[in-house]
């Protein structure tokens, strides 16, 4: 006979199943809708220009010459590094609306002394900040053949690889 006894059992079963299905759906469904505001990959562009500038600075421009990066580190000349690096990362097409880009940087050189890793600060763009939002770090290993000048700053006086680490951010 059809009557209403047992309705509570049915409802218990149904509500339990709905609860489980709803939880499973919430866990499994991850649909993200992109808005135009997310369409710029700001950090990647900054990292790309920083890596490019270091790679180009580390290439000798004539046969058997030292690369500008190696000579500015070897001669401990942060001014030469700063002017060249800022020119490479901030130049844009003439006549463009932004004039020139406003990327700032701070760099350090890391070296190995015995079994310790130490560092000394190298060039920076004049600000004493170590970074702002959307700051990226790019680095490059530089092989220095003649470390006599920089041995005063800490590294051993021997041919060695140094790591130059540059932090970049857009003002």
């Amino acid at each position, binding site marked *: 006979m059809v009557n209403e006894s047992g309705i509570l059992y049915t409802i218990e079963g149904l509500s339990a199943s709905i609860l489980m299905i709803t939880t499973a759906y919430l866990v499994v469904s991850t649909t993200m809708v*992109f808005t135009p505001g997310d369409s710029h990959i700001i950090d990647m562009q900054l990292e790309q220009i920083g890596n490019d500038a270091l790679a180009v600075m580390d290439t000798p421009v*004539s046969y058997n010459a030292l690369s500008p990066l190696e000579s500015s580190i070897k001669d401990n000349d942060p001014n030469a590094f700063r002017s060249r690096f800022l020119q490479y990362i901030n130049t*844009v097409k003439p006549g463009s609306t932004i004039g020139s880009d406003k990327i700032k940087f701070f760099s350090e050189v890391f070296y190995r002394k015995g079994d310790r890793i130490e560092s000394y600060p190298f060039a920076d763009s004049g600000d004493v900040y170590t970074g702002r939002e959307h700051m990226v770090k790019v680095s490059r290993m530089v092989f220095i053949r003649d470390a006599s000048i920089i041995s005063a700053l800490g590294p051993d006086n021997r041919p060695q690889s140094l790591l130059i680490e540059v932090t970049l951010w857009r003002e």
Partner: protein
Amino acid sequence: MILYIIKPLPGNMNDKPRLKEASIVTDDNAQLSIDFVVGLSIFMIAFTIVATMTGGLLVGLQSKTIDYDAVAYRTGVILSEDPGEMNERVGIAYIAPDRYAWDLIYPGYESYQQSNIFRMGLAMPRYYYDVPPQVTMEHKVNHFFSNYDRSLYKNKVIFGDYPYNFNISITPLNGDNPRSIGDPLPANHQAGYIRRVILIKHPANVTLNAYDEFGNTNGEMIITVDFYQLSSRTPGYMVFPSIEREIINLTNFSSSNTVINDVKVCSPTCENPEPSSPTIWIKKPDGSVFSSYPIPPGGIPVENGTLIEIDPGYLSKRYFPNLGPVDKIDLKIQFADPDPNVVNHLGGRKNFSYSQEVTHQESFEQPDMSVAILEIWIW
């Protein structure tokens, strides 16, 4: 709706309960049957879930705005790190010097361009393992920014089915003119953007002394381009004779009446250069340009600073079918002068090579690689 409820009537307690008719309007119990409530709520929950999922159906359909930066980045990689690629042989004909020389398609084969170039890139080909990164070649950069063809560039550099607008600009840091191709930049669109730093490798030149002190030259200068000898430097600083421009600077002419009568190219049999590009050109310091074949009657007058330029792509297999990597090509230049004494001391055996007789004011010069900024906008 008509519902039946069981309600005892007031009054007689011994009577059996009787059904009473009640309608939803007049009845004041305000209860729906439990079946209906449960069924409706399950339906509504299911309907709400499906309705919220329809937003996700549209993701991926018109997502062009998130693509702009990705397309710009990919184009930047293709231009600055990829030498490009093409089919250099169609059937038995060589249509280009090698598979990376998409800008040096031989004359007469331009119609093969659209279907045989896979990609256009500006970088130096990685023939060797130690090519420095992001080094581009000047002849590719010049060709790319001078021969803009929108549909070809869209298919061979930008790729993708969506009709992207693009603008590619190069700004050299050494003072050369900036150039750009593509559509003018939009004022108010959000555009995908990437900026790359590249190096440009420039053609090398050799300065040769036209005066030979030993005499007995009979006015003939033989310049040997030895491919094997030229491959002795590391690749970023090497001359690639088949695909780069070679420039020979002649100096130390003692007489102002000297002319060039004849130019021949020998490998080893001698023949005349081509009448049109790619070929050998004679350029005077005042800017006038003469082709090396046919020579105008009376010869081409020369003076200090006359340049002999070999076009990129000329010293290659199409024009010299037996050319191999250890071969050499001789350039024979015949000078003439009314004074036989001058003629006897004009010319000599020379080399287009890295080491020159510095004592005789001869030198090899390769301009430093110059830095340029490449910018790409996509919208």
